[in-house]
């Protein structure tokens, strides 16, 4: 069997690796720029297991477990560090919501801790809690090194014989008798039996060429990074009042972002001063000692938003045979991708749909079985 994975980000790499481990045949990976070019290396490099919905939480828990296990095999240290997430809560409604959901989290074995303002002050003396009503702390969440995870998968896949085509954009997918047949690239035509689209924010363009429409749209998100400082912020701090988040990388840089209205679409990946100013104001209010920190860089990437803020993987029965997708993560792709690769590889090779994957099938939009995930950060 000849399988083409399109997209050289974390999803594509994970799928290619998992296919290769299962001896799926000849695996080609096409990337229009270089490996990790798209959204993977523009991410905030964080993972969490706390979602509003059981489907997503369960998926993330399993996914991170897979990644930790794989880390031992990788040539690169993925620098997984469970520093925790802390959600600062500002009203009764937010606290209620977290309390309610924490029952589900306990059931899944990822209990968190509720903190009173005094406790926050005690544990994180740098946070200004004057207007904070409480906080939820999730110790199982944390950070990883996005580049090294990608490179780790890349080198594993390469060793297993995956053939990489970098700087090779796919212009079209030829379909014959409702079956994927060929990929048109700049360098010519490649015959294929299976095509997996792991093209993130650029998926709609390719799907539309073969007449498929899923309700997803890319939204540009911007991130700020400061110069490196001595490490003092362990968790990722999410300010549920202003919509800002801030954390410190193991390299010492302080990384964060804030909700800022952006029209959807593949708009240019640039950043706005207005956004930076809004973040600076919010974050120096929350952590006053950051006033002396200096913003060194800003960059932008896309969240590929789906209607229910959860990823889409697998295929619909009516689609051309051999066509699969894995995208639409709505901002939490990096943490899901290790498991997505594994489950999708199984699905492609056996035809069976693993239990964990079922809620995320693209058919859920037609069947109206949406996941209703609302906890999106940034």
């Amino acid at each position, binding site marked *: 069997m000849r399988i083409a994975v399109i997209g050289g980000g974390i999803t594509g790499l994970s799928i290619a690796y998992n296919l290769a481990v299962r001896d799926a045949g000849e695996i080609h990976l096409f990337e229009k720029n*270089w490996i990790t070019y798209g959204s993977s290396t523009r991410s905030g490099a964080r993972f969490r297991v706390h979602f509003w919905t059981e489907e997503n939480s369960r998926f993330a828990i399993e996914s991170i477990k897979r990644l930790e296990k794989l880390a*031992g095999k990788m040539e690169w240290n993925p620098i997984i560090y469970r520093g925790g997430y802390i959600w600062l809560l500002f009203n009764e409604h937010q606290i209620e919501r977290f309390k309610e959901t924490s029952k589900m989290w306990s059931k899944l074995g990822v209990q968190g801790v509720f903190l009173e303002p005094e406790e926050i002050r005690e544990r994180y003396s740098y946070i200004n809690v004057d207007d904070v009503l409480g906080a939820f702390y999730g110790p199982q969440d944390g950070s990883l090194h996005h580049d090294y995870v990608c490179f780790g998968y890349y080198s594993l896949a390469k060793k297993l014989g995956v053939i990489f085509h970098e700087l090779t954009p796919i212009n079209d997918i030829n379909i014959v008798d409702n079956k994927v047949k060929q990929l048109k690239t700049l360098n010519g035509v490649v015959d294929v039996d299976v095509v997996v689209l792991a093209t993130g924010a650029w998926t709609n363009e390719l799907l539309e060429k073969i007449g498929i429409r899923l309700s997803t749209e890319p939204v540009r998100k911007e991130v700020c990074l400061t110069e490196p400082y001595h490490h003092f912020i362990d968790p990722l701090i999410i300010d549920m009042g202003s919509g800002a988040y801030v954390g410190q990388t193991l390299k010492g840089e302080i990384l964060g972002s804030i909700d800022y209205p952006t029209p959807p679409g593949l708009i240019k990946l640039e950043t706005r001063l207005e956004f930076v100013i809004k973040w600076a104001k919010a974050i120096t209010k929350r952590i006053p000692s950051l006033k*002396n920190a200096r913003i060194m860089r800003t960059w932008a990437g896309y969240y590929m938003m789906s209607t229910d803020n959860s990823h889409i993987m697998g295929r619909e029965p009516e689609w051309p045979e051999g066509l699969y997708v894995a995208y639409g993560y709505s901002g939490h792709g990096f943490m899901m991708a290790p498991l997505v690769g594994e489950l999708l590889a199984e699905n492609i090779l056996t035809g069976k749909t693993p239990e964990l994957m079922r809620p995320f099938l693209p058919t859920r939009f037609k069947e109206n079985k949406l996941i209703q995930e609302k906890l999106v950060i940034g």
Partner: protein
Amino acid sequence: MDNFFNGIRDRQGEKVSIFYCGRNIEGYSSEPVSLALYSKGYKVLGRSKKLYRFRGFYSLDPQDRIVLTKIGDEYVNACEIYCQDGQNIEVDFSTPFLVKVFSPLLDGYFQHRRFVKNRILWRLAVDKIKQMANHPEVRHIEARKTGRIIRVASDIVVVGGGLAGLTAAYTVSQLGLKTLIIDKSIELGGRLRYDYMDVPGVPVSREYLLEDILTKISSDGNIKTLTRTIFTGFFEDYPTAYSQEERTLYILKAKGFIIATGVVDLPCIFRNNDIPGIFSASTVLEMVNRYRVKLGEKSLIIGLSQNSLRIAEQLKRSGIDVVMVDNSRSQSIQSDLSRVGECIVNVREIEAVGRKCVEKANIIHDDGRDRLEVDFIVCSAFSNPDILILNQLDSRLIYIGGVGFVPVHDEYMHLKDNIFIAGGVSGSPYSILHLIEGEIAALSAAYKLGAKEVEPLIEEKIKEYRTKLNEMNVKWKNKVFRNSRSELIENSSFTYPPTLFIERPRRDAFICFCEDITTEDISRTVHEKGYTLLELVKRSLGVCTGRCQGRLCMVNAALYVSYLSNLDPSQVGLTKARAPVTSIPLYILAGGEEE
């Protein structure tokens, strides 16, 4: 507005006393702290991030934030802060125990090679690792400062107040357009301020040239000037600049931009090239001529070029012995060499000796080895256009052998949209060309703004420009112009990196000073991982991600990767710079807007 002034300042300043690790030192309020300390023999300003090596300053440029120094309770670039009475400068000379033990493991490669595949061990290690790096402290510093944001409107903004920038600004204002000059140094004039030799090809003396243009600028009501202000790049919504001294972020509103940021003297790559006492070419001139600092008795100049000769002559004039070295012998310069003295060619490897400052230099060349006593070393082998802003703008950069990475522009000095360039940043090697380019850029910008009457003048100037280019044998410019007309990038050919002075990758030859990345780290990434795109090398090592934003290391890294992989530098490519190209304190951004 109080912060608009016309760039000429009294340089005398008053005597102040500052304290270095408790010792009382005399300085002048007109000189940067780093310089006051160096002139009194205190050369260590801080320690490096990963390996805790002793670091001084490489250049006086406020954008090169390689090392931060603790002054009072803040960590700042000591080249950006001027002496004030009672300042306390602290350097920690002790090395943490863990670093001493583990520093052999802490090369740039440690992240993905040596550490720790066992999950439990890793958890223990990571808690230590995150505390080990020598980062400035931000947590305990009292946040007492406030900043502000000011909007400044002008027709044209000129970035860089050197010969090209000033010429452009004056030409623009003569057409009745409002002009704002932004310059990062304390006075306008750029190199003319401190390179005391006459400008080749210009019939008047340097003093006259400088005096003339400054008088014109200061008496022109259309021109405003912001000095000690760094242009921080183009955000999607606004271009910005900021002044540390004024604690102000300027939001610039202009119809056109002329970028005239000049060149960067690249650090040379040799053993121990990071210790105090190794300077960029222009910084040495600035220290010797402008600040009249006694730098020592003996110096080593790396690189044989017209520029090196100018530096050598001026150092000799101020009583400093000069030895010049290079990795190849340039025929055109040979005849001038006798004037300046000793010269060693065909050098294969240089090693600076010393821990807290340069004491000696070992030189291995084709005919044996030499051991020289030197007080300081000057990196004058290669200057690349200062492409930081252009890189952030995503403009096309092509590699031209002997010139460096050059922005693609046309004869009208047009870069893209409403942005024009002039001077050294376009790669032009001679000041006489910078003068014409300044005029052309200004006229083209004015034309774009609607001054259609200047068209014949532009054509005339371009004719003159072409003649001068021919006269001076600057043939590669034609290639740049051709590239600006087609999207096809012409390939350059592979060249030996002009800044490279090591025989094989070394653990003590640094490429990226902010992140402590050595030639050995890069060589292993290229050879063991097979990564030859600078983007990927950056992602694996962190090269070009430090505080200098790649200003000093990016071109060196690209050329070194190209050398190791035998690829053309254009194929290795550069990495993208992001706004802000120089970091801005959060208290300024959060400061709120003033009218």
